[in-house]
């Protein structure tokens, strides 16, 4: 028998349904074997006796909240045999277990799942049902402002790693009975909770169904990288460098997208929520714009657009004029390189890109006590000294710096890296083929992006395919009283947001 066969049979044995037996001893034997009580130190089976009845309590040490458990056990300890029999289960369930969330289970498999998700399972001798009490207390942090989406004014709560907190933070903003949050479990071993959230009378039912089907189709052992793993399964196109869905860690951003008719996907163990469908331009928006007056918001947005646009095109453009100085328009003649270095400009650009990326990575990994030291070294790496040594001409440093600042100003980290990759491609094409290389590589990238569809949504909407209303919504940050209709890209069932 080959190893894969063995694994298959093992999984079959996992799927087999076993009913709870009348004899506590038999149940215990099965459960101890399955859960590995005695082998794993954190898997606990506590045998107790209340009112003359044998009880077995199963729980995972780190998840159970000992305060609640002590309280429940204390009350059970006071119960007399006369209070319990006959109908032990009924009495316990209806009277003696003082906890809001208690359920009855019929199979060993359900017991397994409940114990592993952190609940307390109570098996009673001579009973064919078990009680499961939710005494979970997951290790986690409380909501705090996400690092990547800070605002000057406005709410400072952010999603955390526990899915229940996240859905609660969302519901706190939309108290609508039509808000649906459907949960399912993904992962043969990890059994990660995945929640699809949408407004039932607004969101495109086709999209909701598509997402649910795609989640159902996933057949993997686990989702340790949570939303990113899920995204690759849902959207596919894993080799596409551009981010095809938007993430947010802000409940207010998530709620406003829900109201626009988007579908959100929460994944347990991750503070990032997936927004679908999303386009290129969704990645260029930031909550900050909606915290200012429309005109300031529009200005902020334009600055960002210009920054991102510049960060992609300024290096290839300048390289073009370095390679073909005759083409430089007279008005901007002064930008040509004054000094020359022994190293070709293209290599200088690539070195600068490499150096800046090293710096970026170092900045992420450097522990804060060393950050100052890193800053000093970084200034040497890309700065005056690099010029003095003769490695770089000043212009290269300048344009690389502009490009990098534009990259940092991109609200979506994923998009900024993808843009950077596009820039490098354009740079290389420009170096090899000069102007034809420049324009054809830009055209190529635009055609690829326009042809891309993320969950059936054209990626460059509303630019290509062109939609005038959508485009105005991108160019201007409209005042809320004027946002009467939902964007057509989400195919809302109900277009109107407010009475005109």
């Amino acid at each position, binding site marked *: 028998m080959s190893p894969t066969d063995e694994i298959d049979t093992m999984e079959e044995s996992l799927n087999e349904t076993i009913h709870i037996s009348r004899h506590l001893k038999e149940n215990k034997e099965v459960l101890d074997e399955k859960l590995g009580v005695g082998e794993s130190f954190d898997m606990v089976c506590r045998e107790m006796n209340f009112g003359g009845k044998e009880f077995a309590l199963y729980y995972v040490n780190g998840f159970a909240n000992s305060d609640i458990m002590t309280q429940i056990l204390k009350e059970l300890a006071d119960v007399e045999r006369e209070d319990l029999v006959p109908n032990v289960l009924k009495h316990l369930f209806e009277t003696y277990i003082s906890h809001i969330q208690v359920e009855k289970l019929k199979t060993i498999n359900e017991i397994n799942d409940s114990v592993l998700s952190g609940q307390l399972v109570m098996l009673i001798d001579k009973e064919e049902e078990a009680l499961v009490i939710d005494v979970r207390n997951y290790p986690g942090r409380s909501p705090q402002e996400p690092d990547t989406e800070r605002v000057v004014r406005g709410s400072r709560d952010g999603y955390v790693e526990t899915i229940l907190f996240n859905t609660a933070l969302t519901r706190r903003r939309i108290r609508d009975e039509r808000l649906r949050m459907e949960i399912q479990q993904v992962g043969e071993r990890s059994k990660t909770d995945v929640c699809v959230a949408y407004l039932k009378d607004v969101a495109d039912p086709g999209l909701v169904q598509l997402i649910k089907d795609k989640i159902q189709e996933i057949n993997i052992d686990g989702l340790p990288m949570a939303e990113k793993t899920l995204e690759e399964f849902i959207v596919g196109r894993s080799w596409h460098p551009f981010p095809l869905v938007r993430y947010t860690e802000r409940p207010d951003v998530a709620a406003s997208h829900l109201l626009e008719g988007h579908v959100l996907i929460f994944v347990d163990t991750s503070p990032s929520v997936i927004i679908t469908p999303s386009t290129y331009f969704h990645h260029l928006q930031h909550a900050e714009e909606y915290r200012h007056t429309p005109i300031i918001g529009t200005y902020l947005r334009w600055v960002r657009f210009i920054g991102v646009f510049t960060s992609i095109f300024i290096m290839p*453009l300048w390289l073009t004029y370095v390679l073909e100085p005759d*083409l*430089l*328009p007279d008005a901007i003649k002064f930008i040509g390189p004054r000094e020359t270095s022994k190293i070709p400009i293209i290599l200088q650009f690539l070195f600068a890109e490499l150096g800046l990326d090293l710096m970026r990575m170092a900045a992420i990994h450097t522990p804060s006590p060393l950050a100052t030291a890193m800053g000093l070294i970084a200034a040497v790496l890309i700065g005056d000294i690099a010029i003095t040594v003769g490695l770089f001409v000043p212009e290269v440093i300048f344009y690389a710096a502009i490009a990098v600042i534009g990259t940092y100003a991109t609200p979506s980290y994923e998009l900024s890296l993808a843009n950077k990759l596009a820039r490098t491609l354009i740079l290389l094409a420009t170096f090899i083929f*000069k*102007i*034809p290389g*420049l*324009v*054809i590589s*830009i*055209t190529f990238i*635009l*055609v690829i992006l*326009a*042809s891309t569809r993320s969950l059936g949504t*054209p990626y460059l909407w509303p630019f*290509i*395919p*062109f*939609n*005038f209303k959508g*485009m105005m919504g991108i160019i201007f940050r409209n005042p809320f009283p004027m946002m009467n209709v939902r964007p057509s890209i989400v195919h809302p069932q109900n*277009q109107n947001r407010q009475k005109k």
Partner: protein
Amino acid sequence: MSQQQEQNKPNDLKHRKIRMAISVGLGAGVIWGIVGFLAYYLQFTDVGTSIYAKPVLNPEYVNTWKGHLIGVLFFVLFTLIAAFIYVFTLTRFKGPIAGIIYGVFLWALLFFAMNPLFHLTNPVKELGWNTNSVMISLYVLIGLFIGYSLSAEFNNQDEGNQ
């Protein structure tokens, strides 16, 4: 405006096609006209936007920036016409490919039919790699813009009908 109701009447579909063609044609003209103007200013191409107005333009204006701006206006007119032709003949093709081919066709029309007819600029063979690559790229994007916008709009409707 409920889209379902509009579909039911063929007259409304025609109406919608006209509206969409106007919006896409104007958008294409303004956006790509400016891009073409910039490409000329940055000296990537020797063909300025004034060629679109050349047959009617005072020859003195042809190489001034005023001439090129007037050219952009005429260009908008041409993209409008192109959008109208596309919306009534080619929307049944899904996806971006049809648009790209349409763009190449427009480019060929301009440089192989209109150019010899009205002596807009030098023949293609004499324009050189730079100008030709810029013009082809520009027209591929114009075609994609017009074609894909209109195809996507009216193909989605068909899907909804079924």
